């Protein structure tokens, strides 16, 4: 085996050769991490399912937060009939925000990854700017948008003086502000994976498209876009999944209002404020199930296998 170090041609590293080994060391390495995930991810999920089926404690005298284990599957029926508009809103907002983030992120990634390929320093600098929002608190940058878009803020003033916006109209508190806020917060998550795909794109394929008399648009849709699909898929998933569960942008203290509550707001309010744990738990299970279903369908349609 050791002779392989001398025998192998430079650069021809056979990474796949290694996983053939079986060793008790593997167990030693895996056990702590996997036990942690089992204890704090799998067990809580079971806990969540048990909580979602609980009923009010008959000896609790209607005190908040007192529930006993039961098999009250009606909880699920009740939350769906009560909160289906919140579900629709969550997935609608998440979808719209993902689309906006894609419309901003793809051209940006294309510009940095393809057009600036010869300018390595500029490329590196612009990538730092793309991820710059990561380094300023998520809550503070959302709060900053709240101030910028507020009724007395510059954006509303300009739009009103141009009579684009009526005098009594506002931006914060509307679905538009919430969708915009979510889209903004996930631009880096969208742009980076697409950049990674486009940066590796072999430009000779694009040239070939032109040589074969394809229009730039048809070259883009039939060569560039398909080759960058892995990046588009991870970018959209990295945006859509957290967006569907987000409740900060939609909160009335940030960009939302009373009519923009998403499913995350309902879960947060039920769990932390009114202590209605079964409702919060059954909504969480339904949210997770819906997301897994949608992601499964999406991944199957687009035909990717490796997610991790």
């Amino acid at each position: 085996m050791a002779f392989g170090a001398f025998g192998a041609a430079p650069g021809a590293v056979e990474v796949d050769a290694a996983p053939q080994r079986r060793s008790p060391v593997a167990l030693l390495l895996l056990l702590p991490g996997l036990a942690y995930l089992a204890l704090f991810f799998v067990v809580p999920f079971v806990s969540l399912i048990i909580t979602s089926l609980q009923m009010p404690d008959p000896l609790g005298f209607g005190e908040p937060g007192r529930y006993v284990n039961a098999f009250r599957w009606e909880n699920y029926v009740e939350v769906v009939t009560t909160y289906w508009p919140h579900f629709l809103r969550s997935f609608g907002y998440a979808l719209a925000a993902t689309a906006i983030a894609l419309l901003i992120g793809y051209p940006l990634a294309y510009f940095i990854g393809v057009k600036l390929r010869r300018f390595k320093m500029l490329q590196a600098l612009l990538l730092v700017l793309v991820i710059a929002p990561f380094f300023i608190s998520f809550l503070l940058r959302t709060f900053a948008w709240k101030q910028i878009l507020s009724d007395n803020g510059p954006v509303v003033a300009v739009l009103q003086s141009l009579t684009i916006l009526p005098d009594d109209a506002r931006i914060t508190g509307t679905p538009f502000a919430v969708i915009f806020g979510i889209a903004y917060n996930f631009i880096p998550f969208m742009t980076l994976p697409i950049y990674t795909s486009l940066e590796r794109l072999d430009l000779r394929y694009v040239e070939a498209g032109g040589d074969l008399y394809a229009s730039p648009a048809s070259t883009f849709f039939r060569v560039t876009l398909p080759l960058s699909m892995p990046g588009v898929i991870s970018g959209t998933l990295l945006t859509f999944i957290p967006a569907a569960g987000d409740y900060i942008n939609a909160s009335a203290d940030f960009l939302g209002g009373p009519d923009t509550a998403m499913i995350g707001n309902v879960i947060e309010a039920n769990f932390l404020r009114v202590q209605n744990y079964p409702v919060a738990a059954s909504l969480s299970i339904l949210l997770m199930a819906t997301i897994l279903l949608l992601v499964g369908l999406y991944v199957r349609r687009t035909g990717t296998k490796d997610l991790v």
Partner: protein
Amino acid sequence: MRGIRFGVGTWGLAIYAVLAFVLILTPIAYTIAFSFNDSIKTNIVWRGFTLEKWATVCVVENGAVCQAFGSSLLVGGAATLGATVLGTAVAIALVRYRFRFRGATSLLIFLPMATPEVVMGAGLAAQFLAAGVAKGLGTVILAHVLFCISFVVVTVRARVASLDPAIEEAGRDLYASPGQVWWRITFPLLLPGIVAAALLSFALSFDDYIITSFNRGPAVTFPVYVYTAAARGLPAEANVIATAVFVLAIVIVIASRLFAASREKRLAKA
């Protein structure tokens, strides 16, 4: 290469990119600018430039801002340490060894990343409630380690996969003990990946609000402070902390890029 032309399309794209960057940077600039605002109590209207808020950062509201920041550093440090150790071990095992339940293991690592924070937060909180664990900084750290592990595994795994096992073999052939092989060969070669994973973990932990809010009990981290204060008006000192962290993070990122570039040059020469 003939493919790149600076035609009308490219200029259009460049303008679009500039506008996108204006959008990306606007709230950052706003947050930084308002750390220098001579505000009274709430920090909404621009009242003039001052450096005073940078001096009073640990004084205002009896030091609430600074204490929250300190808690965030503590949680971030502990969570990063835990997640990096656990995640690195899993990453090495995944690349190097063959074992049963490989598919199940990959799924277990992928699922936390596909779970919305609100679900993960509620699940852990339900678990702590059922087990009768009192919530506080301890439970926040446990929760943060959890959501950081998967990201560490994914980041470090890429680095392990690019490592030639023959180098370690050579070490063993030269009678190095397993400990020596790890500390003198494997660990230094994996270090860039491990550092990247640790920085990512710290950033994720430091900025987390949702999972923290479900598992914090009375503990207040910096994002929790911001969320609670946002309803009644945020003091400029919160912007001071955010600005300082931002500048520090940007410096670290640029320094690490320069370091990586010079290292590549050195390796290319050798």
